[in-house]
């Protein structure tokens, strides 16, 4: 699979179809993986592909406006590229998407705790990976191995339903405890491909929307606002939860909104680049039972 990828990238670079290909390469410590920016054919050798290629590289696309870029993408990355196209952040003709057939990626945090059984260490998001057959990639590199089937009784919103079943005071206590550990390093924002605002609400000083301190007031405002700004846009690539150094379960919030948006408006993010974004359109029959 890797050789096919290398050959493809060399070919793209040779006939100048792209100026740069963003992929994955092995880090110096020989185990972990880091993003790789291939500009000439010699560097194509560095490219690798295995279950440690976790990052959603589409976040880097905003740094190269107007350039012809090749990008190595898995299913979840494809969906985030679709949303970026839907929000006119990328021009499809400037993009050459190389889709790698993915069997799930490793979650390094879980690896540290449950080292024995390889099955547990797959990232949570990969268990229920819809792997919707998006056909936007320019070329797909297949994998001989059989695809990991999602168990048919798998309910991706199961942790959300468990949280919803809790009493409201219990939920408040849980989230107060989680958010009080937030150190406001904004890794969740910087790693998210959907967060491309030139000046984030959190950085504005006139007006300063919420406190810059890591007290609960600032943290709760930040995390709730971040989740709201991803409503109908988050495709659950899980990068925010992976990047969070203090381990706040951010996916549990994103997926809650994903569930609500699906139930209320039967809208799912990242399916088609032509669809109108969630909050940019409406439907006569939107539910409004909560309005007096």
């Amino acid at each position, binding site marked *: 699979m890797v050789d096919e990828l290398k050959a493809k990238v060399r070919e793209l670079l040779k006939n100048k179809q792209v100026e740069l290909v963003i992929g994955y390469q092995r880090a110096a410590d020989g185990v972990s993986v880091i993003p790789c920016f291939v500009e000439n054919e010699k560097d194509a050798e560095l490219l690798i592909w295995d279950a440690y290629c976790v990052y959603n590289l589409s976040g880097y696309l905003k740094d190269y406006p107007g350039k012809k870029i090749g990008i190595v993408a898995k299913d979840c990355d494809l969906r985030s590229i679709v949303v970026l196209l839907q929000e006119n952040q990328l021009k499809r003709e400037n993009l050459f998407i190389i889709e790698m057939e993915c069997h799930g990626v490793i979650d390094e945090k879980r690896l540290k705790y449950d080292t024995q059984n390889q099955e547990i260490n797959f990232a949570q998001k990969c268990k229920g990976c819809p792997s919707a057959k998006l056909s936007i990639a320019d070329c797909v590199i297949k994998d001989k191995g059989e695809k990991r089937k999602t168990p048919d009784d798998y309910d991706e919103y199961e942790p959300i339903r468990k949280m919803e079943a809790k009493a409201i005071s219990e939920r408040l206590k849980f989230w107060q405890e989680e958010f009080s550990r937030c150190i406001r390093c904004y890794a969740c924002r910087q790693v998210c491909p959907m967060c491309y605002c030139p000046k984030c609400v959190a950085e504005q000083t006139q007006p300063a929307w919420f406190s810059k301190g890591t007290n609960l007031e600032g943290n*709760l405002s930040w995390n709730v606002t971040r989740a709201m700004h991803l409503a109908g846009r988050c495709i659950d690539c899980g990068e925010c939860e992976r990047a969070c150094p203090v381990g706040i379960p951010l996916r549990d919030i994103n997926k809650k909104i994903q569930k*609500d948006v699906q139930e209320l408006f039967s809208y799912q993010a990242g399916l088609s680049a032509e669809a109108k974004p969630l909050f940019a359109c409406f439907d006569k029959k939107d539910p409004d039972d909560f*309005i007096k």
Partner: protein
Amino acid sequence: MTEKKNWEPKIVAFLCNWCSYAGADLAGTSRMEYPPNVRIIRVPCSGRMNPLFVIKCLMKGADGVLISGCHINDCHYSEGNFYARRRFAVLKKLLEYTGIDPRRFQMSWVSASEGDKWAKVVRELVDEIKSAGPNRLVDRQTHSAEV
């Protein structure tokens, strides 16, 4: 913190300029009685309302937030309240999910002629917020969790 006996809830209400604000004004001019706990902020349309306003009010200690706009199909800008309806349906569920009492954030449609409905909405809202108690989400001094 023991319940302060004569605690009066502070409620922030964002009223759309064309309908709800006029409705509230009508309630005033026709001398309707309703509790004074609501601080009204006029916005051009419920569609202008930004979830950040609601979050900032709740974090800064408001006990309740109300957004009121024109009825569906009556919006002066024809689709403002449709967008608002979608936006705040998601926000309401999210606030509830993170443990904020759902009664603290409510929405209503009040048209320019419904002075009485405005008074009723405010009366019910104040009762519900009184039963929900003061907003002790964040301690005002340390801005961290109430211990």
